[in-house]
């Protein structure tokens, strides 16, 4: 049994950790979630349908993430773990020299700021490449609900004002470079 358990850990740990990391954006919390998930797997080993192990693990991870998000909320007024990154992003944006990392960092912050289940579905589908069927099982939603939530989640992501601002800055930066190009030669 231990060998099978070890095999399950090896097979799923990166996906669980990754999901938790993009959902919470705090490495330590993501590690806690990963540990919780695999402890629960050990505890419920004999009750689980092992053919649906991946879905079961993601569902446990999803529930655990929701618990952590609830715990994080009151603390965020005092300790914002992303403040540094976002401040840097804003500064670079003002200077008009935003790099790709800054955009991705802002993108991750925007994903994290989505409400559930939009956040979980965007992460599962677009970052982790899970199929609609897998997401359905994990979140206990219908296929059409998954699709609607995914599209709505993406739209909410695009509505993020900071992200849009960064994109428009990049565009204008590029067009300025284009305009300056011929005259500079």
């Amino acid at each position, binding site marked *: *049994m231990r060998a099978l358990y070890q095999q399950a*850990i090896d097979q799923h740990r*990166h996906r669980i*950790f*990754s999901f938790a990391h993009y959902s919470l954006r705090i490495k330590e919390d993501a590690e806690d979630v*990963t540990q919780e998930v695999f402890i629960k797997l*050990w505890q419920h080993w004999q009750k689980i349908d092992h053919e649906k192990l991946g879905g079961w693990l993601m569902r446990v991870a999803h529930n655990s993430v929701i618990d952590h998000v609830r715990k994080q909320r009151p603390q965020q007024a005092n300790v914002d773990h992303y403040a540094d990154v976002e401040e840097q992003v804003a500064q670079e944006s003002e200077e008009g020299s935003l790099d790709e990392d800054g955009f991705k960092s802002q993108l991750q912050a925007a994903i994290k700021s989505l409400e559930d289940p939009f956040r979980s579905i965007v992460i599962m589908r*677009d970052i982790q490449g899970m199929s609609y069927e897998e997401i359905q099982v994990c979140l206990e939603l219908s296929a059409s609900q998954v699709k609607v939530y995914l*599209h709505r989640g993406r739209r909410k992501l695009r509505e993020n004002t900071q992200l849009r601002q960064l*994109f428009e800055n990049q565009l204008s930066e590029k067009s300025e470079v284009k305009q300056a190009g011929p005259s500079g030669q």
Partner: protein
Amino acid sequence: MTKVKVMPSNTESQCYFIQLQIDGYLDGDLSEAQCGVFMSHVQDCSGCASEFRYAQTIQDAVLELPQMSCADSVLEPIHRLSAAEMQPAVGVRSEPLSSQIWELLNSVPAYFRYGFPAAAVAVVAMVIGTNITSPVGSVEPLVASESVEQYSPEDISQALDELNVAIDYLNRLSQRTEVMIGDRFLVSPIQDSINASFQKAGIRENNPLDNGPI
């Protein structure tokens, strides 16, 4: 059944319609004909073209986000746990006795949950009431005549106070269960029993029964 969406005629609605289809286009969910309509509109409309470019940029950036790696050290405690020969029966919780009792109580219907303890308390109260009112010279076989001298009026008064508290508690319990166990089944029999006992004991004139909730 697939819904057939018809492109609206005015420009504003067309833009709205096209922008709703952006995700469908990016996911490859649109039919060939829908793709054609979508692309021809995007090529002619700068607003929709900009929106589409933005959506595509975001989508590409999200798809490019890497899968995070979970360090081995994160799972070390898990390995230690499983190595400690912990059986899967760990799933059977070793909770404290109090929470197990509470769980058991929660699993039974409310009327039983409150009614059973209430009835138990009532029985105890009736037994106490009967014992403390042992009348002098009573012919009742349950009342021991030699025990009369063992209780002073203060003892009886204190016992009655305690009984009043118990009855008050039972009243509150019966209200919570929302069933008629209070007046009909608990309080009246106790009251009758106590009154009868005190009558037999001949000490009714100077006892504090009148002050309580009975």
